[in-house]
């Protein structure tokens, strides 16, 4: 059918154009990278100490824990879930491990890390069980467990903090030591990302996580067990939170009951900024790294720029809202372009 005919018969004719946003969408990560670079240049112009090796190292180490947790959160979000309990899990594992090493100073750091991961895995298993076997909505299950784990942390701590002098040198050293000239926190992040990269991209189970999130019905037909995947992602998330608990306590050389309260919001924000789709199925490690780095830069740069601390929350909220809305617009644009391509 010729468009000429429509034109001649219709006075009102809304011709839809291909969405430009969608084209940008294909280079989303590049866009985010460009945004980050621009932000860095802007900050550098205001404060010349920003782009120094020292500051970059500081920023990396400060963002390390966020980066680790973001991997787990990405997997949870990919399966269309959410986990609000990670701050509490982190605190619980950190507190228990700190108490243990203060009583057993000869504990090897590796044992401490494994212990933290173990505690986290148990916490995650409980949530995974609630979500997969009992079908409790992730938000409700994790809200409830957040309360419970946080309460348990206070209880275990008995109102005390574990201070740096109670921690053996080698435990505090987990976060400050260097491996091949690189801060070991950063090394752990790199290891986590390499493992995650392999797991997500190169194992069957890893791909099944995406399959479940992308199309749960098809996944069932193909024989992918949704329950197994749910159990897995919340357990992995718990394990990473447990690991982060040890790193947190080691980095700040102090374990408190209220450690990392509300940290889950930053992690979720990093994932959303990194382009992880809340509707499930989509999310890339490269995006998550950039998203976490953006939050890390904001945390690092806002004090450097003398931005009033009271604006920080507001700025954070605006950026997150803008990012998720942009995401939707891009998706809509893609769909519209697909429709246009059908030429009906």
């Amino acid at each position, binding site marked *: *059918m010729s468009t000429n*005919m*429509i034109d001649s*018969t*219709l006075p*009102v*004719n*809304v011709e*839809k154009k291909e969405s430009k946003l969608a084209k940008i969408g294909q280079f989303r990560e590049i866009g985010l990278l460009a945004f980050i670079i621009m932000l860095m240049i802007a900050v550098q112009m205001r404060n010349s100490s920003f782009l120094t090796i020292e500051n970059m190292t500081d920023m990396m180490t400060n963002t390390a824990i966020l980066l680790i947790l973001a991997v787990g959160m990405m997997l949870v979000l990919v399966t269309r879930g959410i986990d609000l309990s990670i701050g509490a899990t982190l605190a619980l594992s950190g507190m228990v491990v700190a108490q243990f090493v203060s009583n057993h100073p000869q504990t090897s750091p590796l044992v401490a890390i494994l212990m933290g991961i173990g505690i986290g895995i148990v916490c995650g298993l409980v949530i995974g069980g609630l979500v997969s076997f009992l079908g409790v909505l992730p938000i409700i299950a994790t809200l409830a467990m957040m309360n419970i784990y946080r309460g348990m942390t206070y209880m275990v701590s008995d109102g005390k903090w574990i201070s740096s002098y109670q921690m053996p040198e080698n435990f505090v050293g987990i976060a400050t030591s260097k491996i091949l000239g690189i801060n070991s926190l950063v090394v752990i992040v790199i290891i986590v990302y390499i493992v995650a990269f*392999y797991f997500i*991209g*190169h*194992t*069957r189970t890893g*791909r099944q996580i*995406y*399959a479940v*999130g*992308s*199309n749960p*019905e*098809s*996944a069932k*037909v*193909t*024989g*992918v067990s949704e329950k197994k995947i749910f159990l897995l992602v919340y357990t992995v998330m718990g394990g990473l939170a447990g690991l982060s608990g040890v790193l947190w306590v080691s980095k700040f050389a102090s374990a408190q009951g209220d450690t990392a309260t509300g940290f889950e919001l930053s992690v979720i924000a990093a994932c959303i900024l990194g382009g992880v*789709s809340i509707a499930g*199925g*989509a999310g890339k490690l490269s995006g998550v790294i950039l998203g976490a780095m953006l939050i890390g830069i904001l945390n690092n740069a806002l004090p450097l720029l003398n931005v009033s601390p009271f604006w920080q929350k507001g700025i954070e909220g605006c950026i997150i809202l803008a990012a998720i809305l942009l995401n939707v617009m891009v998706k809509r644009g*893609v769909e*519209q372009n*697909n*429709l*246009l*391509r*059908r030429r*009906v």
Partner: protein
Amino acid sequence: MGEIVMELKNITKTFPGVTALNNVSFVLEKGQIHALMGENGAGKSTFIKVITGVHKADAGEILLDGRPITFSNPNEAKAKGIAAIYQHATNYPDLNVTENIFMGHEKISPKTKRILWKEMHDEAKGILRSLGSAINPKQEMGTLSVAQQQIVEIAKAISTNARIIIMDEPTAALTTRESEELYRIAEKLRDQGTAIIFISHRFEDMYRLASKVTVLRDANYIGCWAVDDITNKNLIIAMVGREINQIFPKKEHTIGEEVFRVENLRKIGYFADISFSLHKGEILGLTGLVGAGRTELCETLAGIEKYDNGFIYLHGQKEKFKNPKDAMQKGVGYLPEDRQKSGLILQWGIGRNITLPTLENYSTKGWLNEKRESLKAKEIAEKLHVKALSVFDLVSSLSGGNQQKISVAKLLTTDLDVIILDEPTKGVDIGAKAAIYKIINELANEGYSVILVSSEMPEVIGLSDRVAVMREGRLVKIIDAHEVSQESILAAAMGEVQPGGEDVCQPI
């Protein structure tokens, strides 16, 4: 005569209350494209599900390469080289093409369990190239067109080394050019020795591809013919079988003035250039192949979806419906195709379902009068002979036919002029069908204008005063009652221009 790869002997499958397959036999040869035809509900999908191991036959046997075999799940059938490509692609939009092809049988390194991406990409590329397609295997599935997705589905079947591929209406959503591409691929596979079971409503597909055709009707095996030996007419008789008029009520309604008119309606990506008019007391059949854009058009007419160009007139007045409520208040009501998903609230009782569209009528200033409400529901439900104990019976406990009556009842609580019925008899048995036909006819007698959307030829022919045929998002023909026949409808739906109808719009 080629080598027989698969043979089904006297297969019977019953579900509670319904016999889905009754003593059906089927023979498939190597390198053969075998068409399977029949009306909706003839048992084709059950037939496929038995072959692919989703359902287990109650009686009869399946022979594969001459040996009897039973499948207890789809994976076993897959392992034996049987693959099915469904009408609605079952893919993962966020994953890339290669993964979609290999999901469930990824190539992994035997030692490290690592996914061998390179090998998979290469093989995917190879398969796609062998199908003559230039799709990049690394592309995301969601960005492909429907036709490309179909090709990926075929590639998926090939990747499992399938010897038998079942294609369930693969061309339903494709344009002519895209279908041509698909034919080419099917022929290529055939030449390589793959046996293909091809299910389609398009006669064109069958003539173009198949060498044999097996017809099912009402769960029964009717016959198997060589395509060259059977005429179009005889084939249709084999498919439809019965006297078309027998279950349809006598038309008594008189057609009055024009009530509803649509001009050049267009929704980008779904349909375009839709123009027709509808008169008081008239039943306008709307038919076409699956994916022709009928449902989208109906939803637009009922104010559910927005349109991009064109005009809708009601009683000569230009109208633009803001939402379904607005359309209903102005006099256009819609009965959706999927009554369970979009027609009813299954967890609710009969009464609440019936009164949902017109809650305001049983309320004063927003306060519901439940007594008035249930009395009204009772009145309408009884009028439609709904079979239940009370108006509080849950809809989920009713049979399909009764559920459909509740859906229709919802439209009768308010003053409508135009009623759009989208596949009103889908999934209901023959008895309930007759009851619904009677209701539709009565509606027309009472002066409603009805648009009846249906894929079932006899239904459209038996009830409609005129039949509009859609193809590929366009209204290609409106056929008057005296010229309506299966042939004229099929011809229009499949794109052959036949004499005897007013050409509304030219095909692309």
